[in-house]
């Protein structure tokens, strides 16, 4: 089901946290709300499920306006960060609870609970209590409980934050598999860009209560709209340099790097800009020479991550296949690919 937030505004007392947000989640897609803590992504999630009252604007499920509808009647499934399983109920009773509330017959409840348990692979755990389950298993139960009453939309609030690294990887693909199998519209709230990029059809990146950009993961990575988006996506992260628009090129202050002016509108002569270079776009091949000293080498196995300290003290990162010809403290000359460089204005907007 399509979800639409139209002019959504939320205030707590005198403080307005989100103002006039517009967000559309397409039917059957999985959308990530990505941003640092305090950016308003959880507030948005709570507004969709109805735990928060909306200060202004509308929320539509399909064509139905649910803005003033109580959370109990919205038919939204939520998986919380802590899973929020009912500790005194068994797994089976946990999953059955939403159906009991709807007064389904015992046979029907048991049929649907078993079906859901098969979907999330917890058939053998039905008799246990939450305290007897691992984190991943609890996560699966929470998913089953959220999905068992066939909600219009599934909301996931930092679902992987409490898992260790290995389980996180496993549950990432499991949640995506289940979402695809059920075809449900889903919203994932996360501060982890890897989660957002690996699990979702589209990402809405948020900062300070506003959505900065909505796009597919690859489009957002390739084509960030602002300095903030570019800085948030990518691991290892992008490096930024300050520059000034010179004569036919951008001069990076304190170095002799000159970036040729690419096509498109650049600000006038003398304007200050910020240049972003991703680690994979700095290496032995390219068109703009960069001189510097290798100040740190991080071995990642298949690849190495090099920190390149420029004469002005700023650091660029380069990720390259492991090579043995350069080492720590070597002075090297590498190259940037000028066609893969992002240039941002002083306000952070992409130029």
């Amino acid at each position, binding site marked *: 089901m399509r979800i639409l937030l139209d002019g959504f505004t939320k205030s707590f007392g005198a403080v307005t946290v989100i103002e006039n947000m517009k967000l559309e989640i397409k039917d059957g897609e999985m959308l990530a709300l990505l941003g640092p803590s305090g950016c308003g992504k959880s507030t948005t999630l709570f507004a969709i*499920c*109805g*735990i928060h009252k909306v200060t202004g604007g509308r929320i539509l499920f399909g064509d139905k306006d649910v803005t003033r509808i109580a*959370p*109990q*009647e919205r*038919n*939204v*499934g*939520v998986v*919380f*960060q*802590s899973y*929020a*399983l*009912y*500790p*005194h109920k068994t797994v089976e009773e946990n999953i059955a*609870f*939403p159906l009991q*509330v*709807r007064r389904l017959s015992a046979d029907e409840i048991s049929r649907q609970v078993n079906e859901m348990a098969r979907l999330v692979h917890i058939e053998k755990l039905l008799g246990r209590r939450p305290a007897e389950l691992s984190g991943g298993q609890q996560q699966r139960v929470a998913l089953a*409980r*959220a999905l068992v*009453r066939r909600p219009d939309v599934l909301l996931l609030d930092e679902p992987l934050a409490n898992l260790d690294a290995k389980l996180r990887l496993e549950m990432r693909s499991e949640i995506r598999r289940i979402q695809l199998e059920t075809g449900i519209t889903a919203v994932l709230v996360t501060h982890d860009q890897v989660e957002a990029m690996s699990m979702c059809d589209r990402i809405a990146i948020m900062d300070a209560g506003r959505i900065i950009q909505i796009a597919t993961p690859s489009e957002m990575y390739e084509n960030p709209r602002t300095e903030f988006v570019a800085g948030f996506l990518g691991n290892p992260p992008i490096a930024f340099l300050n520059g000034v628009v010179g004569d036919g090129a951008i001069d990076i202050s304190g170095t002799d790097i000159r970036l040729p002016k690419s096509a498109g509108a650049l600000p006038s002569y003398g304007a200050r800009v910020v240049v972003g270079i991703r680690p994979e776009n700095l290496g032995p091949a390219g068109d703009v020479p960069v001189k510097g000293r290798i100040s740190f080498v991080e071995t990642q196995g298949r690849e190495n991550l090099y920190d390149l300290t420029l004469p002005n003290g700023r650091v660029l990162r380069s990720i390259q296949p492991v090579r043995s010809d350069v080492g720590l403290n070597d002075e090297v000359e590498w190259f940037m690919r000028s066609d893969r460089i992002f240039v941002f204005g002083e306000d952070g907007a992409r130029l």
Partner: protein
Amino acid sequence: MTGNFRSWPVVLALSLLSAPLLLMYAYLIVDTITNSPVGSFVPNEFTLEHWSFLWETPRGRPNIWRVTLNSLVFATSSCLIVLAVSSTAGYVLSRLNVPGRSFFLAGVMVLHAFPAITLIVAIFLVLQMVGLYNSLVGVILVKAAIDMPLGIWIMKGFYDTVPWEIEMAGIQDGASRFRVWHSLVLPQVRPGLFALGLFSFLLGWSEFILPQVLAPGNQVQVLSVYLASLIADDNNFDMALFKSVGLFYIAPVLILFFAFQNYLMNIYGGGTKG
């Protein structure tokens, strides 16, 4: 306690300080089943005669079992009322978005500190006016009302520890706020209910002033009033009898306290009157 200082001098000093206290409790038990020669405190015979109050009712006094039943009714009823009122009001103060919530909370705090015993003259007169003087119902309601602010405060504390997300999940699962409270939150605070129930039962069982003032009649007498009137009767001085009745009266308290001290310690430390 870090282990870098010797602890035996402290243990020894406190043991000496505690000896009189220990002695009082030890003799409370010993004196009820023994006789000692006049002027001595070393028992020389075992006897059950001091316990005869259990099967013989002295003239002019109510039957001990009747009194015990009254005490039981008094303590249990006021405990149940405290539990009912505290488990609902405590939840509201902890969780629900009601108008004037912070005002209620401040009110409960003030009531908790406020010494309700100062109101006893007015309450005494009111009970007489409405005809609840000398009835268990009246004194039970008064006792429950006086213990209620502490109960609400304790239950609010327990509710505060229940994760919000459990309630959020319940609401998303379609349950009403009442159902969420009743079938999801209340089971989480069961240890709290148990501790508070135990605590307020003990408070009721031990209460003396309220029944003494509001319900002193023979028909509604509770154990504390019974024992106090026994002691106050100058014509029949029998310390061993007093102690036997006293032990009979205190036994449930001691048993419950020792069995469930882990539950109770927090509440006793958390600040009650006295």
